[in-house]
């Protein structure tokens, strides 16, 4: 299990190769990469609670490993200032079969979005740059996370 919180960018292909590590019992790898959307000049600043962010991501990863028969899994979440097109988050799940890998990856993202202590502040850029605004939590994300509660 790999959990990393870092300012640097990541190479998803290299990370997944490392995670698989030559083992031959993996039949399915599901990955999700979250990117920053936005127009020219836009910026996104990700603040996090150093210490708790790593701890909470580890708790979420352990919960996924407990619920599905995974071979291994990985979460990388960046912090700091990002530009449109930049990678924000990487989740990868390895399993013998794709159903478990898909479900666990979706679970990881849903729980991460509502539990991991990160906050996004965005500045729209463009011709009339405005004040940077904190992104508001979305009710849809809460709903997406709640559906996993019933499966316990």
């Amino acid at each position, binding site marked *: 299990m790999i959990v990393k919180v870092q300012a640097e960018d990541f190479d998803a292909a290299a990370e997944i190769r490392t995670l698989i590590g030559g083992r031959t019992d993996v039949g399915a790898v599901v990955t999700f990469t*979250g990117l920053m959307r936005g127009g020219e000049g836009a910026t996104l600043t*990700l*603040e*996090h*609670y150093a*210490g*708790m962010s790593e*701890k*909470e991501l580890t708790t979420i990863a352990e919960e996924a490993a407990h619920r599905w028969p995974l071979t291994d899994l990985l979460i990388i*979440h960046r912090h700091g200032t990002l530009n449109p097109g930049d990678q*924000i*988050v990487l989740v990868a799940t390895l399993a013998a079969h794709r159903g478990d890998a898909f479900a666990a990856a979706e679970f990881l*993202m849903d729980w*991460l*979005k*509502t*539990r*991991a*202590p*990160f*906050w*996004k*502040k965005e500045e729209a850029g463009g011709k009339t740059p405005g004040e940077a605004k*904190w*992104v*508001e*939590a979305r009710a849809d*994300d809460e709903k997406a996370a709640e559906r996993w509660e019933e499966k316990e």
Partner: protein
Amino acid sequence: MQLLYFAWVRERIGTGEETLSLPGEVTTVGQLLDWLAARGEQYAAALDQRSHIRVAVNQTYVGTDHPVSDGDEVAIFPPVTGG
């Protein structure tokens, strides 16, 4: 007590962290929030919408009934928006 503030809670209060000594009558998270909100306008502005406030004691999410004491690290922040 070590207090940490994040995102707009940090901006409204005007600092990311501070150390405060709790008065004896403050023994729960809810009482701590009430006590902080009464410390001044900035604190009140940060903490007035309680439904938008999350609290972690020693890096674990807790509810308003959770006990607090001077040795704790208490973080106060808005709902998270990572991912």
